């Protein structure tokens, strides 16, 4: 069947071997100008993504978490080249993207696809489900008949019977069904990396579980790599192998999911974890871990960006921005007092009482 075919296609494309990261990102930066400088006016810029480095390994799921405005969605759009980065280098399986001697943006998009949060807005309302899925392959040179066959096969695979659904239009589907169509469309080009930007966030809980199961199945079947962006820490813990925590355009902490959830090294990660509503009626949250809203990424404080909200801030934190440094095996953090946080200094009342460990 098609599966073995697509796996062999992957093998043919997998040039660097297992050890080479599928995606390597260095110094990624994007600032949006909202007020130009000059004439005595200070320029105002949103520091959406402000120097981010990370690798995505083959076959893993990397989760990205953070509050609104932390730059997680901008990062995804920069990776897809839906936005042009100010600076930064992106290397896809050894090939620099969009550079001489590397891989073209178009070539990269064949191998990297994206699923968005708004399942309705991301489908063309005038195209049937089948046409939407077959459109991508046709653009990339697959003939009409074959691309339609592929669309129908994918529909069946994401749990929508092609006999019933192929000719329906987006408005005739529920949110969960539309998101399945979006996943099928993303898979139509047989990508190697799938970027899921809050892909299950708008779904009802009972449907969310179905879609998560589907994502796990597809990952195994096609040997996919996921970049999973979400604000839901429970879902990220469930689906990810590694997690990257972002704060105001920077990576605050990155590490293996269980290690990071069990012993967060950044005060921000710890606060995020303890802000999750409790599921135990006898242990309700007594105190909010952070005060106030996430600050806007326009006027950044000097030094560490988390200073104004940090319960452990000291003078030195305001002097220099901490670099991302190793604090354990495959665990990195950007905090001067990470050792104390990991040791449990300044205890937070409840981190997460329902850890499945």
């Amino acid at each position, binding site marked *: 069947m098609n599966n073995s075919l697509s796996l062999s296609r992957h093998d043919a494309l997998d040039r660097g071997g297992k050890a080479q990261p599928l995606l390597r990102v260095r110094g990624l930066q994007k600032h949006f100008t909202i007020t130009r400088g000059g004439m005595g006016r200070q320029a105002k810029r949103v520091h959406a993504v402000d120097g981010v480095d990370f690798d995505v390994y083959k076959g893993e799921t990397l989760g990205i978490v953070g509050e609104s405005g932390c730059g997680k969605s901008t990062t995804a759009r920069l990776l897809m080249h839906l936005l042009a980065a100010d600076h930064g280098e992106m290397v896809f399986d050894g090939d620099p993207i969009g550079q001489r001697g590397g891989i073209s943006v178009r070539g990269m998009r064949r191998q990297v696809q994206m699923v968005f949060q708004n399942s309705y807005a991301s489908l063309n309302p005038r195209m049937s489900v089948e046409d939407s899925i077959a459109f991508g392959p046709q653009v990339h040179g697959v003939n009409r008949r074959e691309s339609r066959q592929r669309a129908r096969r994918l529909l069946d695979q994401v749990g929508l019977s092609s006999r019933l659904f192929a000719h329906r239009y987006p408005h005739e589907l529920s949110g*969960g069904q539309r998101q399945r169509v979006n996943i099928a469309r993303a898979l139509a080009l047989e990508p190697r990396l799938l970027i899921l930007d809050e892909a299950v966030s708008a779904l009802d809980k009972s449907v969310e579980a*179905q879609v998560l199961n589907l994502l796990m199945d597809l990952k195994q079947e096609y040997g996919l790599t996921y970049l999973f962006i979400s604000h839901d820490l429970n879902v990220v813990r469930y689906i990810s192998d590694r997690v990257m925590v972002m704060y105001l355009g920077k990576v605050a902490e990155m590490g293996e999911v269980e290690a990071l959830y069990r012993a967060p090294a950044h005060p921000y990660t710890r*606060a*995020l974890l303890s802000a999750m509503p409790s*599921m135990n009626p006898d242990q309700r949250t007594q105190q909010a*871990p952070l005060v*106030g809203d996430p600050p806007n990424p326009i006027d950044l404080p000097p030094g560490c960006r988390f200073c104004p909200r940090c319960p452990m801030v000291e003078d030195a934190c305001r002097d220099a921005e901490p670099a991302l440094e190793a604090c354990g095996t495959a665990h990195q953090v950007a905090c001067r007092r990470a050792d104390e946080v990991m040791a449990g200094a300044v205890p937070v009342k409840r981190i997460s009482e329902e850890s*499945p460990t």
Partner: protein
Amino acid sequence: MSLAAATSDPAAASQPPLVEISDLTVHFRTPTRQVHAVNGVDLSLERGEVLTILGESGSGKSVTLRTLMRLLPERRSQISGRVSVDGQDVLAMSQRQLTRFRGRTASMIFQEPMLAFDPVYTIGEQIAETVCRHEGVSRREGLARALELFELVRIPSAQRRLANYPHELSGGMSQRAMIALALSCRPKLLLADEPTTALDATVQIQILLLLRDLQRELGMSVIFVTHDMGVANEISDRIAVMYAGRIVESGRVEELIGAPQHPYTQGLMASRASGAQRGQRLEAIPGAPPDLAELPQGCAFAPRCPQASDECLAAVPAARGLSDIHWAACCRLPA
């Protein structure tokens, strides 16, 4: 003028329930079909109690809430049943009575605070206007009251914030301002329609804790609508689970979260990603909620239920009591 005037007194327990809904049905007509949004809901709320209505989209939770304030479009909705709040029959009220009722007896907060405010007036003016209209006080007194309210909802530098326009406030701040607006006439009943869903988790928990404190300080009753079990656990005394326009299970938080009895509630608990081991499949509820224009016969959950039998399809199951407060509507439970 003390805002804590309405604090619950010991006599409250012996008073009749603040809210009593019996056999409420709400249908919406469209040119081509009729949507059965609420299909026979019975509900009561004690004074000083916090009840959460938990349900997915299309379960009828928001429609039930809106009926309590008569906010549904009059011409397109057919409402039957009885709805009484603080001894007043809500469905029989005239427009004039409704205007007095809204804000004073019951008031509501929404998911999108930005849409609740007029963008061209300052927040302070809008709260003062509400107070003036309802209580006939001067503008100055209204503004003084607005300041008092801003301090009550713990908005830092309250005086300065009153002069802000809605767009100048962050998400969490405008949610606080909306709570202040809703509390401006000391309502006995606060209706909250997913007020924390659009917020970041770190802000959500602050708003939940604020609502919990305010409820205790002011002794009001609250009906909170959400789809999030964790949020329901943090805020409520009692939870009612809705599915396809009916309440399928209701009980104290400890009973409902500790030992859910209806297969739908059990399914919701089992499908949560938080309890699952990584790499293991989630126990998802199969299928999707029914089309409200074509409800199945009998128990609406039967088509998705792992334990369904012929009995379930025959008639809508009656409530089976499990404790003095806890009940579930499922044939499988002993009558």
